[in-house]
């Protein structure tokens, strides 16, 4: 067994502490023949410190496209020649989306908007939408609306939003290569305000943006420092018209190594499969990731692209004897 896995077994599995950046990097550099052992260890860590349950979530875009920011992976930026047009979802359709999500057994429904930060119109839509969902559907409501002011954080808490997603996307050192219209530190500031408000912090990112393996380790260590309740792990799905539209997809074994490494960095977090897993890992790799540290999934479609049918993921979870986390377990 590679020495790093011995160290990880003691530090992470036995003691429940995450690996530091240097050790995460060693994990990311493990050869392919060590991958099965690495995934098994990450799975053991997940089972010991999180349990067998899998948290299921649906997401929907309340405001699509026309974003003033230049996140180079995103088809919703108004600054690129992407075919995605601006569109708003009406409240009845939002509630129906929440209802359909809850019908899959999901406990989380995240409302997302492609904005730098919410304006008054968006906050009004959120207030109306969250109220309507809470009256009609038994599901936890999360939100992802970009960078917030303290007043907006307080408003979301008052609305009953229990978790806020704001991805750092990549490590601090690589962020300026991906986004130039705002800084990594501005995102960090929003995350601190969210944490202090009592809302659960959901913060992850995208692998395959052109970062080095060292920067991937840096990112995992920075997320571990933030200690988010949930980490959504995306793999780049290169979008036509964006600056990263021609980048290659992450190689499947590298994706699995990253999943395991992020689990060993954050033994207790909810580590969620998010966008890009279908093209990066396929069905077999998706299964391997669920047996290698992942303990949450986004089911159904994403914001502008499509996912596997929810039934396919639920059947896979049943096959793996991984129960879907119930609403009562989320409080």
């Amino acid at each position, binding site marked *: 067994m590679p020495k790093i896995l011995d160290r990880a077994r003691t530090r992470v599995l036995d003691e429940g502490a995450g690996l530091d950046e240097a050790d995460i990097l060693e994990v990311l550099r493990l050869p392919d023949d060590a991958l099965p052992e690495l995934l098994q260890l990450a799975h053991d860590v997940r089972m010991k410190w999180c349990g067998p349950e899998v948290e299921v979530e*649906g997401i929907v875009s309340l405001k*699509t496209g026309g974003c003033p920011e230049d996140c180079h992976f995103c088809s919703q930026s108004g600054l690129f020649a992407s*075919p*995605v047009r*601006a569109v708003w*979802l009406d409240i009845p359709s939002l509630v129906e989306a929440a209802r359909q999500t809850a019908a899959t057994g999901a406990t989380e429904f995240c409302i997302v908007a492609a904005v730098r930060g919410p304006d008054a119109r968006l906050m009004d839509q959120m207030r109306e939408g969250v109220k309507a969902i809470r009256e009609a559907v038994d599901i936890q409501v999360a939100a992802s609306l970009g960078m917030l002011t303290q007043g907006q954080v307080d408003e979301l808490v008052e609305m009953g939003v229990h978790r806020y997603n704001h991805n750092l996307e990549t490590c601090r050192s690589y962020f300026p290569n991906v986004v130039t219209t705002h800084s990594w530190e501005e995102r960090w500031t929003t995350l601190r305000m969210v944490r202090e408000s009592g809302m659960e912090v959901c913060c992850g990112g995208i692998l395959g943006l052109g970062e080095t393996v060292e920067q991937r380790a840096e990112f995992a260590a920075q997320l571990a420092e933030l200690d988010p309740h949930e980490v959504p792990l995306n793999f780049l799905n290169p979008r036509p018209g964006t600056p990263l539209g021609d980048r290659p997809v992450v190689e499947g074994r590298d994706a699995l190594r990253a999943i395991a490494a992020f689990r060993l960095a954050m033994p207790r977090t909810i580590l969620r499969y998010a966008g890009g897993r279908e093209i990066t890992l396929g069905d077999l790799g998706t299964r391997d990731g669920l047996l290698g540290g992942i303990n949450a999934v986004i089911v159904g479609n994403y*914001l*502008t*692209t499509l996912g596997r049918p929810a039934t396919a993921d639920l059947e896979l979870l049943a096959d793996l004897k991984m129960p879907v986390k119930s609403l009562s377990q989320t409080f």
Partner: protein
Amino acid sequence: MFCDRCGDETVGPHEACARARELEPPRFCPHCRRRMKVQVVPTGWKAVCVEHGETLG
């Protein structure tokens, strides 16, 4: 007719676009090439062309 993914004029299937479309909604109206307003929800999508109306998937 136009490819509903890339918007290029086409007389036959765009194989790469057809493969990509398994995990993407349409973006261009196949009749007039206009960019459509597309709303994706967890269980489906709706695409609207101002000239040719709504398509559901």
